[in-house]
């Protein structure tokens, strides 16, 4: 398709804008949209779901799964917790549910269309190349369609499957059939049902028995097209005695209207398996007046199915206008371990409502929750979590700590922990604090010659250290920078 002059100008304008707002949100560009091979009509109907399934040449059972989910989605009411006044603005009929950026997943880097490669460059994914140097395998997903997976060959020599979800449906239907929806069924909640009906792609990862994945696996998500929703799905299966560390990053262009992101992540860990899942979420948070931004409603859940299995969630949440996200662990296997480390930063008009659920079912299960919230501007930051110890979960142990830091007198920090304990041998501790940065700490740093801004950065970094320590190296550096940018100018 020929690119006419207007569009070129448009593109140039975007890039110029980008330069201006670099400091605010450096991922705020978007690619020309008419280069998309397919864009579904707005709205969600059975026809659209059938169309998605047909275009992806999916088998019958996959279509069935989608249609059942659609049915549930249409019956379920919109959830009502949190701040719902914004939610009612989401017009589910006004969203493109499926956009495909190019005909096929590029098999080779050279095959990837130029403008997508440009996208990566702008993102700093030479990221892709950088990570290749660092030995990270990347699956990049734009508008929920997987465009590039690297390092596939090396991984497959070990028997590791790491590919886009669509490929997995074609090549490994037995695995998908077995595990899809086994942790997050499509009946689970409103947004999980929506995702199950319309998810277009995502990543699938399978680590066979006894294999320790030699490199970090990584997915990179980006919403590009205006008025689309991103609905991707990630499924990770770790067989007995296997180990994998998985990274996820996300960005979106700056848009005036709100975009919807409703993803589902499922993790299954068998006996003695260990899965570490790290996220740096940096969707567009909206501008300073609270206009635009991504609505980020994600269902993430891990099932420790095997004995002594372990799932660890680490997240750094700096983006999105509204985030609802509760990465959870079902500790079913005896001796299994669940961990949740989170930093959520909100500024301007952002709202983050995040936390975890630790469901203790097996004996001798342990869980740790460390949640650090930082609110600035007029934002609101909530921790909402559940620790449940079932009747048969002997000797369950939980420690939770939720701290909130307030910067400025217009923001809010909220804590909603739920503890439900049904076994006398359980030992559960929960503590939460809310305060601002101590004047004495600031004074001390400034007295040693630091500027106020640097002093705050130092203190905030120290406050978040427990969580940063859990992040893989390259992410930790990025996360610290993100934190500094997100909070820039919020103290005065």
């Amino acid at each position, binding site marked *: 398709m020929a690119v006419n002059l207007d569009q070129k100008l448009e593109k140039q304008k975007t890039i110029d804008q980008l330069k201006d707002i670099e400091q605010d949100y450096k991922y705020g560009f978007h690619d020309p949209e008419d280069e998309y091979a397919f864009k579904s009509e707005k709205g969600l109907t059975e026809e659209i779901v059938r169309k998605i399934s047909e275009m992806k040449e999916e088998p019958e059972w996959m279509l069935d799964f989608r249609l059942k989910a659609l049915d549930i989605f249409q019956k379920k009411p919109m959830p009502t917790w949190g701040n719902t006044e914004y939610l009612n603005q989401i017009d589910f009929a006004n969203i493109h549910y499926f956009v495909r950026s190019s005909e096929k997943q590029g098999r080779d880097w050279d095959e990837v269309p130029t403008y997508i490669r440009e996208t990566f460059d702008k993102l700093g994914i030479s990221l892709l190349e950088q990570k290749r140097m660092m030995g990270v395998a990347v699956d990049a997903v734009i508008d929920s369609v997987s465009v590039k997976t690297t390092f596939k060959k090396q991984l497959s020599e070990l028997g590791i499957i790491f590919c886009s979800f669509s490929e997995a449906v074609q090549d490994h239907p037995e695995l998908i059939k077995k595990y899809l929806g086994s942790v997050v069924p499509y009946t689970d909640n409103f947004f999980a049902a929506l995702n199950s009906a319309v998810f277009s792609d995502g990543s699938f990862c399978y680590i066979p028995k006894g294999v320790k994945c030699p490199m970090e696996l990584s997915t990179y998500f980006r919403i590009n097209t205006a008025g689309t929703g991103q609905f991707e799905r990630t499924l990770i299966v770790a067989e007995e005695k296997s180990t994998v560390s998985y990274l996820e990053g996300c960005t979106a262009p700056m848009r005036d209207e709100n975009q919807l992101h409703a993803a589902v992540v499922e993790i299954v860990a068998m006996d003695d398996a260990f899965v570490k899942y790290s996220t740096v979420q940096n969707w567009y948070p909206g501008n300073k007046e609270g206009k635009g931004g991504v609505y980020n409603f994600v269902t993430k859940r891990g099932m420790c199915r095997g004995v002594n299995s372990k799932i660890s969630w680490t997240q750094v949440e700096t983006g999105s206008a509204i985030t609802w996200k509760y990465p959870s662990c079902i500790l079913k296997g005896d001796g299994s371990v669940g961990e949740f480390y989170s930093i959520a930063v909100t500024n301007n008009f952002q709202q983050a409502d995040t936390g975890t659920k630790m469901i203790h079912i097996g004996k001798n299960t342990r869980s740790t929750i460390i949640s650090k919230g930082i609110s600035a501007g007029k934002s609101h930051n909530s921790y909402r979590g559940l620790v449940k110890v079932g009747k048969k979960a002997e000797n369950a142990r939980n420690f939770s700590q939720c701290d909130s830091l307030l910067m400025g007198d217009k923001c809010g920090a909220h804590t909603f922990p739920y503890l439900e304990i049904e076994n006398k041998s359980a030992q559960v501790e929960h*503590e939460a604090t809310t305060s*601002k940065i101590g004047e004495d700490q600031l004074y001390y740093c400034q007295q040693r010659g630091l500027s106020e801004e640097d002093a705050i950065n130092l203190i905030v970094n120290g406050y978040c250290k427990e969580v940063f320590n859990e992040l893989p190296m390259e992410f930790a550096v990025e996360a610290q920078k993100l934190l500094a940018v997100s909070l820039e100018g919020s103290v005065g």
Partner: protein
Amino acid sequence: MAVQELINKNVDQFQALFDLYANRLNGIKDSPYFRIKQDAVRHLVRKGFPGRKNEDWKYTNLTQLLKTRFQHPARQVSGDQLSQPLPNSVRISFENGLLVKEQSDLDKFDASEVEVMTVEDALKNATVKDKVLLELENMEQVGVSAFGLLSLAFAQGLVIQVKKNTRLSNPIHITYASSGSEKNTLTSQLCLVMVESGSKAEIFQSIIGKKDQSYLQTIYNRFVIAENANLSVYKWQEEGDQGNLIYTTEINQAHGSTYTDLSLDLGGKLVRNNLYATHLGQNITTNLYGSFVLSGQKQHLDNQTFVDHAQPHCQSNELYKGIIDHYSKAVFNGKIIVRPDAQKINAFQQNAGLLLSDHASIDSKPQLEIFADDVRCSHGATIGQLDEQALYYLMTRGLERKQATKMLQSAFIQEVFAELEEDNIARYLQDKLSTYL
């Protein structure tokens, strides 16, 4: 859904009960109190009871209770002494919702210090009439809960007014008792306490239920504490094993005032304590302390606290500790809100539970909602069992396991009593506690 409909249908019974009740009220039908009662019942029937979808009632299921067809208790009162009196206190006794003059020391109150009277009498008293009427109307309009409305509709009601700059030397001991052998009785109490500026008062409430019969008792307290005044309220309850108690306290505090609440819950089938504290001025202190032992076969206790920090420079402290045995269940839901611009707030909250049986359970939901930045707020929750090492230590010193357990449990609960200033009251509560461990 069907259950909720049934309950809401059952709400109509209170209109019928009220009509019965109204027939017995002679002479007050022209009084404004009667009008307020009528409004309260109408309001209740329209509003209905909270269901489990209501977040504040998530862990307490009212279905069974609200299916009951209630009746009024017999009018006669036994006139017996209903509870062991607190030493050096002035008594006020209610039985089946009615004031028992013979068991009350109404004549011992010095009218220049404190006025104690029924709501009806208060509305005839020129000095307090307007204030009482205003508070009653507020209750009806704001009507925190359906159960508060029940109290307003059916209670005889007590008014206590502590005069300006008065320090009451003796605590006021109020006893609420249910007696008789009828089933499914409904008893309601209403207690309005107004402490004028610069005064200090202590109130001790005993709640005693009848054994083996099911009943519902609703108690609605409204405490209005003026500038620099100090009110402490202690409560212990020993409801029967079939007894249901819904205990609601609304506290309105003005500038510089202090309120302290301490409860010891021992009995009851379903007990719910609601405490709502609202701060209307600065430099206010609110202390909420609770302790409980659920040693019955299947008890349910729900402690619900809400401190609304609407003004700067205030503080609140909360400490709740309890022991849960057999098939019993304890719920704690502590909510603290710091409103925008309410700076310099210190709010602390702590709750701890000890589970003794495999079937006992505890649901805890401490909750902080903070809209101001210069605050120090924290909450902690722990759930566990007695420390085996501590037990072992005591046993090496020659104590039997049973004794050692009792000693540790008692120490666990008594951390709450350590907050008491009044020795008499601490001793009284310790006596009560020891029979349940």
